Each structure stands twice: as structure tokens, then as C-alpha cells.
């Protein structure tokens, strides 16, 4: 796929266009990535596609090479990979909580200790997410800002 970037004047509206022979998974991933930069993610549920505001997502989980977005009471599947979402959401109040989960810190109600030096994040929805001790220093860095 060729890539073209063209600089335009301030008066013109910025646009990202994909010219393709068919709307493949790869194209959907590109579209999803661009939307994520604008604060939205595309997720599918029951065969339909939805636009989900990043701020509505509680956490993202990767299970068997599939990636799921968990909102208050809905679960969407996304074409994006966990590492792609980590790159996109990493500077937007999200952090990696374990090998398979990215957590929205704005949706965490409290933190409590878990077994073997880990911590549990209790979400506003009541769900509990394990924070691996590998990522605890990242959590501290993120919420304390290096203090």
C-alpha cells in the first residue's frame, strides 16, 4: 500500500483517506488507529460496529489473540492489537496492568493488595483487575508523576 502525506493550508480541513480495493481487516485497523488518536475506538458487538469514546472504556483485555474493550456493561471486540492500543492509550490515563490488560486509571475506585506482592484495582463497576507487580512502578510513576 502506498502512503502519501500532503501538507495543506490552515483553512482546509485535515483528512485521512484510505484508497483500497476492499475494506480488509488491515484497513479497519488503520481506520481504528486514526479514530483512537481522536479519542474514539471502533468495536464490534453482535455483528454491528460501534464508535466508543475512549473515556467510556474501563479496561482492555487480550484473550486468545482477540482484543476486547470493556465498558460499563458492554463488551466490544476490536481489531486493534493490545500493543497498538497501549501505544495509543498509554498517554491518555491508561496503563498496562498485566501482560493481557490495559487499565483506565480514571475508572479505578480503589487499590487493594493481592496475593504474592500484586495489587488489585477495584473498578467503579465493581470488577477487580490484577495489577502485576512488574507494572506497579509504572502505576506509581503515572499517578505520582515522578514524585
Amino acid at each position: 500500500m502506498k502512503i502519501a502525506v500532503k501538507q495543506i493550508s490552515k483553512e482546509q480541513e485535515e483528512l485521512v483517506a484510505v484508497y483500497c480495493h476492499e475494506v480488509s481487516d488491515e484497513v479497519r485497523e488503520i481506520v481504528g488507529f486514526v479514530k483512537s488518536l481522536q479519542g474514539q475506538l471502533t468495536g464490534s458487538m453482535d455483528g454491528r460496529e460501534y464508535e466508543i469514546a475512549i473515556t467510556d472504556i474501563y479496561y482492555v483485555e487480550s484473550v486468545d489473540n482477540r482484543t476486547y474493550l470493556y465498558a460499563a456493561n458492554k463488551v466490544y471486540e476490536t481489531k486493534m492489537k493490545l500493543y497498538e492500543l497501549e501505544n495509543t492509550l498509554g498517554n491518555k490515563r491508561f496503563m498496562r496492568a498485566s501482560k493481557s490488560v490495559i487499565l483506565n486509571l480514571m475508572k479505578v475506585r480503589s487499590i487493594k493488595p493481592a496475593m504474592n506482592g500484586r495489587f488489585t484495582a477495584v473498578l467503579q463497576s465493581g470488577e477487580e483487575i490484577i495489577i502485576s507487580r512488574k507494572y506497579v512502578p509504572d502505576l506509581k510513576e503515572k499517578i505520582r508523576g515522578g514524585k
Partner: protein
Amino acid sequence: MSGKEFFREVTRDFFVIVTFCNLAVFVLGSIFKPEARFGYEAFLSPLIYGVLGVLPGVLMYSNHELKIREVIVRKAIQLVFLEAIMYLVVFGIDGMKKEDPRVLVGLGVSVLIIYVLVPIIDWIIDSREAKQLTEDLLEFQKNEKE
């Protein structure tokens, strides 16, 4: 878990074990050998037991996050190793008489109590850290909303 984190935890456990070993030696000694008198070298015993106590902790080291079942199995093996090491040192090297079954049981129970108390202390420390993290998190959320 990185080697650095593992070392930090082992160090923390070492000092907790040393403290409880002091307590155990005091309790067991008062019961079974109240007349015994020691020199300055006796101060080294809890430190040596502390080192021996953290050695089986190597079993808990893993590059990946252990599952609950893995943790339980490794903890059980760790306890068996710990009891074996302590019996070997106390009765084999230190030359404690093993005729009195109360001493045998007393040592085994002491090791078990310390083994249970160490993670409880860890839990208390982690609880305090979790409380601080929650406070910092709520502050972070407040700042981000503004």
C-alpha cells in the same frame, strides 16, 4: 518479576524473619533451656537463620506472573524445604538434643508460625502501600478532571 524486585522482597523478608527468629529463640529457650547462657556470638544466630529462611524463597522466583495454584504449590514446597533446613541446622550443626519430642515439635511449630507470619507482615505493608496508592490515584483523577 525482575531480579531487582525479587531481591528487594527477599531483603524485606530477611529482616522480618530475623525479628521473628529472635522472638522464637526467646520463647523456645525460655521453655526448654531457661538456664542457658550465651556469648556475643548468639546474636549471629537469628541472622544466620534469616539467611537460611530466605534461601527457599528462590522457589518463588519466576520470570512470569505465577498463577494462584502455582503460588500455593511453590509455597508448600518452600515450607518443606524450610523445615528441613531448620531441623538440619538446629539438630545437625548446632547439636541440639533431639530426645525431647517437645523440642522437635516446638521447632517445627515455630518455623510454621514464622512462615505464616512473614506473608501476613508483607500483607500489612502492602495494605498500607495500597491505601497510599488509592489516595494518590484519587488525587490524580481529580487533577485530570480539572
